[in-house]
């Protein structure tokens, strides 16, 4: 504390730590300087100029997000002139932005709208030529609307710095600058992994998911089809935020009840198929460590990660588990096992997945995941979409009478629950693999080393004197770092979990937007969502997948045993290298500017 320096903000002296920016210091002192392009997880851009402040002795304003504090510095954050300049800047952005707030996906949840309102912008002074570009609706997951883009560059930075996909970049220059994939190619043909993190960080609606809510409403009203929903673990841990609750509320049964009221005939739990995944994956792993197949084995639950792998790490395809994702396993079971049980034509079943993820929309369309010529998953909606549908249908999620998931695909173990947080799949797999291998029950089942938001986590498990080395990465950027280690040292790990999004599925591209008091991908928020899942796990008596009675039943009645022929047909798949743009994301160059 001896190193503190003194600065003045708006005429009052404060002691602050050196080595931080004016914005960081001001934040801690309770001065919220308006901002737009700044994001704490991303590099400093200094582009929007909304966070400008006056520093005594400087001829011009400085961007508080970039300018370091120094001893004796005198800062003003709220003078009349400064307020005017900031207002002019926001006005200039608005003057090159569509005036369609009331029909916009981000209406009432738009950072630009909030800033304009907070600055008291009532009149437009500088209207003139406005940009006009075509929307890119090619992708099943991510819609790009350059007209709404305000060029803050957060999407470019998250795509390159955090995800290391390098799909988005600034192209052209000046007034004609546009954020786009290489050669302005459609998102569907680009190296976009559909992770949706650009949507999460976008302050406006320049990136949104492909919204299918109207289509779903129509289908829910069709009496001739059987409407089946499955819900991913992370949806329940975040949906409350869309209804004004603080992060960390788990609304499992409320959400189930709401889905029923929306018109779903059956509501199943993706956590059930997560348990199923563990059965298959753990068995596959045991085969591999016994010499059948390549090590390390890498998980395959995350669809963004699978696309990343096919594009950038084709050499590691054989290392990836052949297991389908829990969503696709559930879809497969709905269209076979479940259809049999209710004695209905599977073609008459509408299989809908409610996911925290935008990439699942892409996954659902992958032809190799079809079951008997049918889509296993017919539609995917994100947490955001379902939250909107619930509100739109006039359902009071917070005061609804809770309901349980339906049988026979609704019961899950705690292992299935924690799939939603980074490290969860690995933890769940260890719980089962240990027992399958050693024949003994693993008692200490919470693997702290694998929890939390560290980019790459490592752990060890000893099974019958055999040391199993495992690693976990979340976010594609960390995944790439980890895979580069694997390329150099293939024997270093036996088992690797990879999730495409920061924090795992809880930080998925389809989760509720940050609210007024929070920022996208806030670490605290991610931790609380994960904690909600860990609490659900702790409160369960069944915490290991293989102990789930409905899992035991489905093997007995339908699948036989893990890795059986039926299981292989319905629950496993394959991946293939995608060309020709097979550039490894571990590139030589960052995307500056």
């Amino acid at each position, binding site marked *: 504390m001896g190193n503190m320096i003194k600065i003045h903000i708006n005429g009052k002296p404060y002691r602050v730590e050196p080595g931080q920016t004016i914005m960081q210091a001001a934040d801690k002192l309770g001065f919220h300087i308006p901002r737009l392009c700044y994001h704490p997880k991303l590099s*400093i*851009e*200094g*582009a*929007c*100029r*909304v966070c*400008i402040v006056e520093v005594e002795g400087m*001829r*011009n*304003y*400085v*961007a508080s997000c*970039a*300018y*370091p504090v120094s001893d004796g510095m005198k800062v003003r954050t709220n003078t009349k002139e400064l307020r*005017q*300049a900031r207002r*002019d*800047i926001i006005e*200039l*952005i608005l*003057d*090159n932005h569509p005036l369609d707030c009331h029909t916009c996906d981000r209406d009432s949840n738009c950072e630009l709208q909030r800033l304009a309102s907070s600055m008291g912008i009532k009149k437009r*002074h*500088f209207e*003139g*030529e406005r940009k006009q570009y075509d929307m890119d609706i090619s992708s099943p997951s991510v819609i790009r609307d350059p007209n709404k883009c*305000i*060029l803050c*560059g957060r999407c470019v930075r998250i795509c390159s710095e955090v995800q290391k996909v390098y799909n988005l970049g*600034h192209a*052209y*220059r*000046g*007034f*004609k*600058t546009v954020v786009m994939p290489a050669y302005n190619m459609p998102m569907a043909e680009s190296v976009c992994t559909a992770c949706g993190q650009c949507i999460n960080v976008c302050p406006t609606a320049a990136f949104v998911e492909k919204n299918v809510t109207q289509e779903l409403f129509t289908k829910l009203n069709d009496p001739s089809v059987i409407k089946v929903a499955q819900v991913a673990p992370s949806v329940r841990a975040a949906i409350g935020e869309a209804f004004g609750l603080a992060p960390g509320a788990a609304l499992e049964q409320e959400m189930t009840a709401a889905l029923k009221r929306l018109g779903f005939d059956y509501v199943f739990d993706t956590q059930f198929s997560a348990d199923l995944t563990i059965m298959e994956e753990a068995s596959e792993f045991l085969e591999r460590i016994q010499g059948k197949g390549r090590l390390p084995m890498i998980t395959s639950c995350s669809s963004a990660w699978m696309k990343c792998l096919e594009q950038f790490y084709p050499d590691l395809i054989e290392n990836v588990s052949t297991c389908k994702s829990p969503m696709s396993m559930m879809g497969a079971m709905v269209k076979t096992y479940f259809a049999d049980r209710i004695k209905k034509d599977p073609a008459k079943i509408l299989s809908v997945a409610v996911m925290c993820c935008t990439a699942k929309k892409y996954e659902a369309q992958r032809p190799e995941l079809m079951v008997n010529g049918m889509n296993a998953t017919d539609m995917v909606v994100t947490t955001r979409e379902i939250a909107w549908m619930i509100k739109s249908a006039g359902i009071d999620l917070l005061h609804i009478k809770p309901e349980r998931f339906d049988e026979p695909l609704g019961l899950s173990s705690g292992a299935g629950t924690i799939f939603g947080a980074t490290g969860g799949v690995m933890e769940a797999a260890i719980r089962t693999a240990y027992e399958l291998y050693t024949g003994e029950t693993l008692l200490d089942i919470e693997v702290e080393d694998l929890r939390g938001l560290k980019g790459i986590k490592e752990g060890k498990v000893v099974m019958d004197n055999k040391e199993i080395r495992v690693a976990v990465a979340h976010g594609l950027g960390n995944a790439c770092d980890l895979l580069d280690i694997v390329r150099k040292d293939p024997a270093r790990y036996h088992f690797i979990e990879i999730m495409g999004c920061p924090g795992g599925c809880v930080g998925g591209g389809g989760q509720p937007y940050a609210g007024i008091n929070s920022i996208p991908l806030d670490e605290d928020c991610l931790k609380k969502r994960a904690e909600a899942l860990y609490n659900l796990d702790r409160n369960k008596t069944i915490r290991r997948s293989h102990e789930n009675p409905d899992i035991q039943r489905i093997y007995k009645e339908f699948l036989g045993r893990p890795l059986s022929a039926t299981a292989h047909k319905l629950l496993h798949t394959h991946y293939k290298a995608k060309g020709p743009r097979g550039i490894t994301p571990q590139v030589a*160059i960052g*995307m*500056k*500017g």
Partner: protein
Amino acid sequence: MAVRYQITLCDGPTCMHKRSKEIDAALERELASRGLSGKVDISLSGCLGMCAKGPIMIVNPGYTIYGGVSENDIPEIVEKHLVRKQPVSRLIIEEDHLYNRFFRVFGDVNFFGRQMRIALRNCGIIDPENLDDYLSVRGYEALAKVLSAMKPEDVIAEVKSSGLRGRGGAGFPTGLKWELTAREESEEKYVICNADEGDPGAFMDRSTIEGDPFSVLEGMIVGGYAVGAHKGIIYIRAEYPLAVKRLEKAIEASRNEGFLGTNILDSGFSFDIEIRLGAGAFVCGEETALIHSIEGHRGMPRPRPPYPSVQGLFDKPTLINNVETWANIPVIILDGAAWFSSIGTEKSKGTKVFAIAGKIKNTGLVEVPMGTTLRQIIFDIGGGIPNGKKFKAVQTGGPSGGCLPEAYLDTKIDYESLAQAGSIMGSGGMIVIDEDSCMVSIARFFLEFTQNESCGKCTPCREGTKRMLEILTRITEGKGAEGDIEKLERLGNMIKKASLCGLGQSAPNPVLSTIRHFRDEYEEHIKERKCRAHFCARLVRYEITDKCAGCAACRKVCPAGAISGIVKNRHEIDQAKCIKCGLCYKTCKFGAINKV
């Protein structure tokens, strides 16, 4: 007297102090008393750089330099030299380093007499593709001096006390920049020469490199030695192929002769230089954008700090100076900071190169001591405005600078005076504007340039300059509205203060300075729909005068059918129909159509 003598008296600050004015008067008196008035040309010149030996008088033809001249010597000089054609040997000084060899050799007095060439000292003198030529004019001697007898801190001290400031525009003290880079501890450091000259109408750097690439290299090597760098990079526009070729040749020749590469001149110091091409982006003149461009990125600036001296190219400490700054270094080292700082004004030392263009007789490249007035450059060196037109304004600093009207012609060329007047020194573009040019259009031209060159990163520059340009376009098209000037000022001032880099921070200058000095022209455009220069096509009114012979040529050519009249009678233009295309004006053989 068969020969017509030209006498040049130095009236630089030192010589003036040493009574050059009195000498001038004495000379006039003496000539008059001998009936020679009007038969000898007398001109005063800017500092000739021989202050210690002043007052200086040069007699041409013959190029005799007299030093330490006093009033008492005048009768003798007139009698012996001008009348009897025998130079006064006791006053002749041997001067090795006269900083205007053109003047010495060719006597092109009007143009070269007031100049003083330091950065351009070898341009037009040596063969730029021949290292021998450079060596013959004391080339690489400064480097040798540094390597023989000076420690890096001595070099920095010398540059600091010379008072040299960055010639790229902003005028940051060069020595301080060197010191800041030198004090960073790093194995890897870089020295960069910014040759991404992009101001429209400016070609100082191109001429310097094409005329004398070696001086730039020598400056950089000295800089590298001073700050502890071993690698230099010249970032130059791809549009300058000849300059690139000459640099390549100069680098190769210097390397072959041991002035570049490992163990330079057996001193143990190693330094090499590499050329990197730009690709057409004005913003890359901004140092952080330039660094990004060298790194292989889009040329987008980033916020400072960290400054390049701390974190520059490849995140290593980096020293960036522009071409002219580097070219000054060898002279400072050779002739010393004391001499260098005797030239110029209190805060701006040395000389500055300008590219003068526009409505001026002698377009060209000039180098003058700081403190020379705009009037001296435009009228004495530049020869004034051609075709008998009236001077209206001078634009300095290119798209980042401003326009100064006649009242400011006596402004001295130095960083502070120009800034105070509402313009900037800039990198050295100087455009002279006459009465035929419309100030609103000039402002619009510059803004269109910067708007087009905006990198698009920060909001004020990207969006704000676009809106300013739209307003200006509106005004020049006769669609200006009440309040437009205020909007321009509001946006302009905000963009200046809030933009990320120098390009945005200076983009509004041409507009704000023309509003400041020519507000009435803006108001005329807006309120009276009038352009006094008849430049804005939409605001011109064509009228047929009495000179009309009724040939009907205009009527036939008018695409709008706005002209009516009977053959051999005066025709008339229906202003309501006129689309102001100007075809009638161009067609009329009788000069009977006026622009009003």
